[in-house]
């Protein structure tokens, strides 16, 4: 690791710790306490076991007292550990859940535009799923587990060094002791042993760096592999099954899947085996420390400087030391990976809103007198060269019905997205009662709009909640809105009425057909009761009778409101007051249905005739 990297490492590490402490204040102290206890446990056996052996060799006097001590301490330590463990695990899981919840919340509230931005969402995927492989927990949980382990190894090293420090105590020498015995008795000899142990550890550092690099490669490779695996697995979703069978594509899917897996596996196998090879080399190098220790304390014992019990104690302590060092080194690599992912996670949560959020409140009016105007608006989707809207200037007819028509890709839906401020115009401005909509409080501005998008979504929760978009709803109003949307009868036949769960993802609920979903989405728009109503292709999935019902009710549904109706069914223009015809991102014609029809060469007349000729 280079110097600036190390600085960065500690800074990020501290930041990660702060995230954890903020989430679960008690977690870090508990983790440290448990690590200390956990690491202390074997040392009871190492130290007292040695005393017992010495006492036995000395004739066995009072040996059972020592046994009682050992057993008692073991019991106390292990009970303390066992009782802390579930508490700690629970806190860890809670912390992990909070991570999940934080991500959900961020996704729900971030700019819509950011939700569609690949780089930002990639960051989230890396933060959450990046380390959720090879069985390790990802995100915060993985970080915590590895942190707890690392602390444990740290504590073991500490205890081992404390035990080893006894080697620095000089033994009593016989006056005629040979030189090698005198040398062994010197604290310098013990220091020499320590220096050798540290030297061995240092020798592991280049190996460790190598291992870290390999591990990062394994992880990165797995992320991409898992993404591709997910894409294939998505093909097993049952609606795809119809096409796969009818067009005999199963063989191709299976072949490609197997090829993908084989390639992924062989790459993974190669990298992973290399990583493990390096890791086992590290643990073997560390065994050199143990061998040195055995030689040193064995010599001391033979010289009569220490007891046989002390030999087993020192050897036990140094073995624990070597194990902790080699496992600790392995963990440093993992912690570094976690650090990177935690950083991505923090960066994701901190993604600033790019949208200017004004503070102006929206004037509450009963007369629906909200005047919306596009002034020379142009729009390009991020990372696109083509303009989706170009120089659009128009005024939504206040309190009237507007139809928006045009060929696929003409910019109709983009027009609505800008109106909803899901995107801000690249050029020009949209005004509400003469003021740029960016200057209004976003939440307040949205309260003016009820929109049924073409790809509306109904969620796997209770039906009534879906209509109200809230846990609390006014049942009577929900029923009224269902009635207006032509869905009341169907809901009355459902087993639990408004309490009926929908779909299978969360509820064990009922399935809705496309038409039923559309009616429910319309009911939701009505429940919101906003002064501006937008319906994007609301009848595409409906049969002529349901379509007729929506058309004939439409006037009543949106009475007194400004309404926008987008449709490929030209018939919908008949009951609208004004029609905008979009083509190539601009409004090419506007006027009433009759007026536009009179322009025989116009696009509107063409579109109309294309459908009307058959009726």
């Amino acid at each position, binding site marked *: 690791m280079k110097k600036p990297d190390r600085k960065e490492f500690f800074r990020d590490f501290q930041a990660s710790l702060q995230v954890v402490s903020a989430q679960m204040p008690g977690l870090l102290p508990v983790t440290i306490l448990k690590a200390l206890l956990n690491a202390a446990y074997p040392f009871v056996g190492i130290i007292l076991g040695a005393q017992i052996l010495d006492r036995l060799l000395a004739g066995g006097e009072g040996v059972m007292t020592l046994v009682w001590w050992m057993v008692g301490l073991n019991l106390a330590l292990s009970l303390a550990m066992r009782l802390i463990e579930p508490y700690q695990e629970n806190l860890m899981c809670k912390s992990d859940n909070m991570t999940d919840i934080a991500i959900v*919340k961020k996704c729900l509230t971030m700019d819509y535009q950011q939700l569609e931005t690949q780089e930002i969402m990639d960051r989230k995927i890396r933060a959450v799923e990046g380390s959720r492989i090879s069985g390790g927990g990802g995100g915060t949980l993985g970080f915590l587990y590895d942190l707890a382990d690392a602390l444990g190894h740290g504590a073991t090293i500490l205890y081992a060094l404390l035990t080893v420090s006894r080697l620095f105590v000089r033994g009593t020498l016989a006056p005629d002791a040979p030189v090698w015995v005198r040398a062994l008795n010197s604290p310098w000899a013990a220091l020499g042993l320590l220096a050798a142990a540290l030297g061995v550890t240092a020798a592991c550092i280049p190996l460790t760096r190598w291992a870290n690099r390999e591990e990062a490669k394994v992880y990165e490779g797995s992320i991409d592999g898992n993404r591709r695996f997910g894409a294939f697995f998505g093909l097993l979703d049952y609606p795809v099954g119809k096409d796969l069978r009818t*067009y005999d594509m199963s063989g191709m899917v299976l072949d490609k899947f197997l090829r993908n897996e084989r390639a992924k596996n062989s790459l993974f196998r190669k990298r992973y*085996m290399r990583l493990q090879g390096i890791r086992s080399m590290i643990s073997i190098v560390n065994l050199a420390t143990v061998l040195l220790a*055995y030689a040193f304390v064995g010599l001391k014992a033979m010289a009569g400087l220490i007891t046989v019990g002390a030999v087993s104690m020192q050897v036990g302590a140094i073995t624990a030391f070597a194990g902790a060092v080699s496992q600790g080194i392995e963990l440093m690599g993992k912690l570094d990976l976690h650090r990177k992912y935690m950083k991505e996670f923090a960066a994701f949560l901190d993604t600033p809103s790019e949208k200017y959020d004004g503070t102006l409140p929206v004037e509450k009016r009963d007369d629906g007198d909200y005047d919306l105007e596009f002034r020379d608006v142009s729009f390009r989707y991020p990372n696109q060269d083509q303009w989706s809207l170009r120089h659009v200037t128009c005024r939504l007819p206040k309190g009237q019905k507007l139809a928006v028509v045009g060929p696929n890709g003409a910019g109709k839906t983009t027009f609505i997205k800008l109106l909803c401020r899901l995107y801000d115009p690249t050029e020009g401005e949209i005004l509400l009662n003469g003021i740029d909509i960016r200057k209004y409080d976003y939440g307040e501005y949205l309260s003016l709009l009820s929109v049924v998008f073409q790809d509306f979504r109904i969620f796997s929760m209770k039906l009534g909640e879906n209509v109200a978009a809230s846990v609390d709803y006014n049942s009577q109003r929900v029923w009224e809105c269902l009635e207006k949307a032509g869905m009341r009868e169907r809901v009355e036949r459902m087993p639990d009425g408004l309490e009926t769960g929908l779909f299978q993802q*969360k509820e064990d609920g009922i399935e809705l057909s496309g038409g039923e979903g559309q009616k429910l989405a319309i009911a939701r728009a009505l429940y919101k009761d906003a002064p501006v109503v937008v319906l994007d292709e609301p009848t595409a999935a409906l049969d002529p009778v349901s379509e007729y019902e929506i058309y004939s009710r439409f006037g009543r549904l949106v009475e007194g409101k400004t309404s926008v109706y987008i449709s490929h069914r030209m018939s*919908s223009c008949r009951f609208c007051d004004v029609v905008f015809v979009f083509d190539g991102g601009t409004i090419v014609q506007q006027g009433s249905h009759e007026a536009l029809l009179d322009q025989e060469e116009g696009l509107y007349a063409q579109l109309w005739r294309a459908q009307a000729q058959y*009726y």
Partner: protein
Amino acid sequence: MKKQKHRPALVNIWYLLRQAVRQDRTYPLALAAVLAVKLALPVIATLLPTAAVAALTRGGTLGTYLAAIGGLMVLYAGGTFLGVLLEEVLSVKNSVFRTIWGVTAQTKKALTMDYQLLESPEGLQRMETASHAVGGNHVGVEGMLRHLADWLLNLLGMVLYGGLAVALDWRILLVLAAMTAANYAIALWAWRFNMRTKGEADKDLRGQNYFFRLSRNPANGKDIRLYRMEQWIMGAVTACVMRRDSWRRRSFGRRALRSVSDSVFLVLRDLLAYAMLVGSFLAGDIDAAGFTLTIGVISTFTNWLNMFVAASDDWRYETLEVDDFRNFLDQEDIFNHGPGPDVSKVQSPPRVELRDVTFTYPGGEKPVIDHLNLTIRPGEKIALVGLNGAGKTTLVKLLSGLYRPTGGEILVDGVPAADFNAAEYLRLVGTLYQDVKLLPFTVGENVSGAEDYDRERVWACLEKAGLREAVEALPKGLDTSITQRLERDGVDLSGGQQQRLLFARALYKDAPILILDEPTAALDPLAEADLYQKYAQTTGDKTSLFISHRLSSTQFCDRVVYLENGRVAEEGTHRELLERGGKYAELFEIQSSYYKDKTDQEEPS
């Protein structure tokens, strides 16, 4: 609904082992090698301090001391290295087995089993549980196989060290046996609690995951923002998480109890062992080395025991998932997957006859298709119309060979459709389904359904479908991938383009029967009119069925069939039906009213 079959854990592990060996002949070799090394390592670890104590107390020289320790250390180092490598070899073998055997077997089954079964609620449930069983390194199939090495190792270790301990003193066995029994009983108790409560907890987990996916899907983002749903959704997520937290606390508590019982037994074990060994030592029966060895043996035994109970406990959960997986694979098809009549003998275009066809969805109360009779003459073009829920899409699935009638039969050129081999029957029909599902593969592969295809023919079909120009403009032409799900440089097609691509696919297949289910819903009026014209040209003399809510489409068809409540309510040419003034005429009137001149039409109120 058939009951879920459960098998003993050992039966499942034997099954997995057999499959693993079939996949990879060297699997048992790797397993045995891992066992040998991992069994030897603790023995060396126990012998090391014993050898040291022996050399020091039995008056050995420095030379013998270092030789004994050095020798054992070299063995230990070699064993460690070998152990890590072998373990990883086995671990990779296990992962590969999961994907190459497990996921592949599941994929194959999902791709080839009867669609009708796959799509049923029971089938979906089975699919989901099977996916979970091969969904990770430490669950179900792979988890169980991974634990096989642990289980065998610890079993062998227990037998070996238990034998040693007993040889040293039989009384120690009593403590160890009591410890095992308590350990096992508590594990079982915790497991029962888990089984009793897991359903609810799983449901909350499912909910949690659902909201997690939901929140990050941009397609949901618009509605969530417009309707200010964040509080509603956050409330629901938090509720799931809280319930799971409380469940987990109770579950953790039970696990902790097992550890507490372990702690108590460990104290008993140590007390007894030390008391006995101190006695033996003072009586001169064993020396210091023997003392060290026995303590080592007993504490290592406990280790084997705990790991053995843990592995058995993990199996208890995993075997249920392996059951799920096997039950998914074992589902029996209802279609004929054996030999059948020769499909190539079917005339092109064939006559299709539905005779008293009835279809009821599993668990459904009333039939969706109800004693339907219809004969489609060779080369005839039928328009199928009706209200939402009349049974049109079900009829499409029946004719396409995805569903089998629950009553009556479908005859193709007089041969019952059920007699054909299911896969061969599928060759007779080209269907454009209502829900557009393209694969994340290349344009050419999507059109042809194969990796090796006739490029000229694909271009010709794209041309007929009116998509040639758009594909030519793509960076890699036919080799451009669709969506970025698989390839980073993939492109997204608009709804209209996707629709055309599907049309090209149906043309490429060139099956004698063609079915189009709502192909114009996403098309603008000009594209719609264009498709109508192409339809007539391109379907040629095929027997075909066209379904649409846009009744203008019926005019290109030879005959209109009006479906109501799963039966044919009216049939005839468009003109005949209008003259008859029945339901079809009424429907057409409703839709056409908007297109007629205002002067001769009343505005709907």
